[in-house]
């Protein structure tokens, strides 16, 4: 028994008590701090890109610099922010709490994951400092292996290393979910956040090794010239695209499923309703994880793969949209007959619903083969995946942070300011990325440093929107920081939410629960 008033945050103040901790809640904080740094590095690159694109001539930075900026933006945002974002922070913090467990199944492995993640980050940051990498986040061959004069080996090594952190986190989550659920917490009583992280973990351990192999082959080809991808040696440059997208398409679901989990918790809580169609939601999560593995070829409709492969990949891509649509339908139906409170987390949750739907449906447009010929590699694609990854995942990430902040820190933040930030995010995001759909349809290609003049007006609109969006990102930093020092004590369950994490104190004690909880009801038992 710990003394009254002690919790995981104040049970040790030394640096050592953080760097050698095996407490999942402290490790979550370490991830939170690290990925926040990466988010702002990636965001700075995005800001410079949007500034450059204010004018068509490409006169602010050199072309090589621009290419390194969008490469750094993609690499940092995908592997060092989006992939770990919700799983490594909120997943780490909440999964054991939601399961009624004292920690993850392998606490030391959890700490090791963070060190591996940070090591990979240092590799990639070294690459950025040592001149940068200019291959785009996709590392397409033969450009990356034979032609690029930038720090490809260092950057690819960083991504290779960080993959192991994903794999270990996935493994930890899977074992924890199987073995450490509280008495009475059957699979069909699991909160959807747990299901989403479970499915994400499955994808992480199944897909990440393929990316690791592909990156290793890039490094070997660049250093030793082994001829896997080099056409001069009889290699096949398209093979890399197959390997890369075999990971990177499922990785899109790594980057959205946890967000779906967060939103399911938020919408039920603030609508005061049980989730509509719990079983359907679980099936959809698992179907998305499964179908996600057989659609990778839709990134290659114009790349020279067989026409019939294109037909098959298009077919599966249309099908994978169905479970996502069911989830959207069910979140909407959850609102029916509720008592809806418009707090900041709820505004983020509803923003997610709208932005994810637009992102998903434009994905259906891109899955349509004949139309994709025109839209492929244009800003239409850029807009589409930002609606999913930023409009979807980053919105859900911020929503989750606002939802569980009182539990994590024991303190409340400013209600009005948080609502302003949530609205700024929604408005700024749409101003930034909606014009990019039009740019893409008009024919503006991606990754262009300079562009024809007739696209300027839409680019300017997009860049101005990015300014509003930046406010939406920076404001929470201010009032969250404020709340850490001056925030009102939150109490154990300020939102009056169900779920085991709300039954313990805020912040939780080191071992989460004084007595192991027992579960007797379905999740989201709001009436």
């Amino acid at each position: 028994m710990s003394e009254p008033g002690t919790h995981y945050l104040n049970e040790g103040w030394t640096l050592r008590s953080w760097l050698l901790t095996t407490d999942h809640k402290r490790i979550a904080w370490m991830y939170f701090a690290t990925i926040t740094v990466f988010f702002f590095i990636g965001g700075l690159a995005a800001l410079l890109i949007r500034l450059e694109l204010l004018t068509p001539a490409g006169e602010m930075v050199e072309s090589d610099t621009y290419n390194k900026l969008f490469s750094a933006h993609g690499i940092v945002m995908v592997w060092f922010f989006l992939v770990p974002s919700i799983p490594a922070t909120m997943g780490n913090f909440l999964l054991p709490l939601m399961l009624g467990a004292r920690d993850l199944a392998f606490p030391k492995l959890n700490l090791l994951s963070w060190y591996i993640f940070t090591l990979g980050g240092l590799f990639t940051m070294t690459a950025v400092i040592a001149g940068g990498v200019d291959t785009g986040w996709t590392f397409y061959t033969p450009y990356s292996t034979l032609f690029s004069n930038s720090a490809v080996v260092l950057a690819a090594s960083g991504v290779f290393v960080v993959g192991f952190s994903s794999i270990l986190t996935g493994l930890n989550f899977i074992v924890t979910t199987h073995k450490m659920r509280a008495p009475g917490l059957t699979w069909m009583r699991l909160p959807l956040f747990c299901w989403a992280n479970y499915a994400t973990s499955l994808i992480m351990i199944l897909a990440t090794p393929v990316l690791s192999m592909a990156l290793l082959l890039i490094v070997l080809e660049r250093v030793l010239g082994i001829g896997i991808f080099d056409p001069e040696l009889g290699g096949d440059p398209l093979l890399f695209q197959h390997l890369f997208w075999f990971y990177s398409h499922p990785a899109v679901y790594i980057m959205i499923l946890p967000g779906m989990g967060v939103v399911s918790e938020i919408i039920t809580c603030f609508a005061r309703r049980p989730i509509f169609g719990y079983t359907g939601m679980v099936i959809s999560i698992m179907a998305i994880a499964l179908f996600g593995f057989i659609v990778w070829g839709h990134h290659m409709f114009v790349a020279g793969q067989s026409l019939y492969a294109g037909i098959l990949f298009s077919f599966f891509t249309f099908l994978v949209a169905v479970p996502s649509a069911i989830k959207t339908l069910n979140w909407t139906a959850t609102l029916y007959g509720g008592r809806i409170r418009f707090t900041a987390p709820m505004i983020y949750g509803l923003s997610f619903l709208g932005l994810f739907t637009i992102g998903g449906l434009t994905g259906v447009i891109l899955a349509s083969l004949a139309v994709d010929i025109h839209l492929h590699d244009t800003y239409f694609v850029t807009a589409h995946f930002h609606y999913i990854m930023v409009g979807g995942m980053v919105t859900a990430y911020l929503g989750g942070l606002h939802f569980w902040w009182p539990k994590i820190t024991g303190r409340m933040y400013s209600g009005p300011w948080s609502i302003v930030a949530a609205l700024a995010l929604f408005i700024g995001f749409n101003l930034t990325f909606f014009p990019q759909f039009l740019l893409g349809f008009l024919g503006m290609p991606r990754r262009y440093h300079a562009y024809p003049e007739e696209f300027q007006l839409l680019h300017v609109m997009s860049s101005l929107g990015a300014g509003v969006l930046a406010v939406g990102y920076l404001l929470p930093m201010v009032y969250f920081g404020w709340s850490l020092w001056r925030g009102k004590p939150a109490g154990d369950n300020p939102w009056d939410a169900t779920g085991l994490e709300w039954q313990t104190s805020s912040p939780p004690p080191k071992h989460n629960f004084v007595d192991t909880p027992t579960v007797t009801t379905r999740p989201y038992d709001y009436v």
Partner: protein
Amino acid sequence: MAEQAGYLDTVEQGLALHPEQAATSAAQVDLLFWVLVAVCVALVLTLFALVIGFSVRYRAGSRRPRPGAIAESLGRRIELGGAAGLTVAFLALFAWAGTLYLYLYRDPGGDMLTVNVVAKQWMWKLQHPNGAREINTLHVPTGQRVRLRMTSQDVIHSFYIPAFRLKRDAVPRLYTTAWFEASKPGEYHLFCAEYCGTDHSRMRGKVVVMTPEDYAAWAQKNGEGEGPAQAGERLFTAYGCSGCHRGRGTVPAPRLDGVAGRRVALAAGGTVLADAAYLRDSLLLPNKHVVAGYEPVMPSYQGQIPEDEILQIVTYLQSLEPGDWTVEPRR
């Protein structure tokens, strides 16, 4: 040039909301695109109406009576009905898009104006059948099908003409083809759409669509007298290929007239289709596919023939019919 006077830049300044339609495929793609957009807008508006409607009606302060929970059986029917309805709609759209893709992307065969395209960092090199060469500009007539036969001599590029809704990657080692029929005279953007390094965004050019008469005049003025196939025949001799393959040398080699498009039996067993990529591999990686009955004695031409010349030799070999060569090579 004087004959281009009628083809000044037709690109509009300011905020355009619809790209030009300058090929027969453009309207077909746009019809599908706008139907897709209509379906998406309808779904998004339905969602927004429901979310906003529920948010107002069931906001925490409202006194409206709350309905009880939707019965599980009804809920399941709503889910399954929604899933079934969407699946049917999606499959219909998939079928439409797939059919159009096959039509637009499969080479229809037959006689077409075939332009060779070699991409390199950071330019497009093109050659017309009459030998006319262009860089970063493509002149084509209206009302005639044009085939592009593309490859790259370094990294992957992508040949993109937004006004034609046409895009196809140019991949080293591969020969990809694309076809179109231009319909509206004017000048249109040609972009590289696959990131290819430093000057990717400056790997731009234009397509000049001309009336058939103007094109004929242009082609006559710019033709070099030697088309790619003739150039290929000359190179075939100059690089010494004919020495063995046309039976004048001392080493047995398979005859090549009419080989293109046929299946070739291999020494290692099995057969391979003699497509453009096979012909190219045979020049650069001769030991990859050794023809049945022959020894692997051919030297590699790796690094000795520029990419556009390889394409000319391939064009020449593809132009041959069986029996075009009268001399029987040694066996």
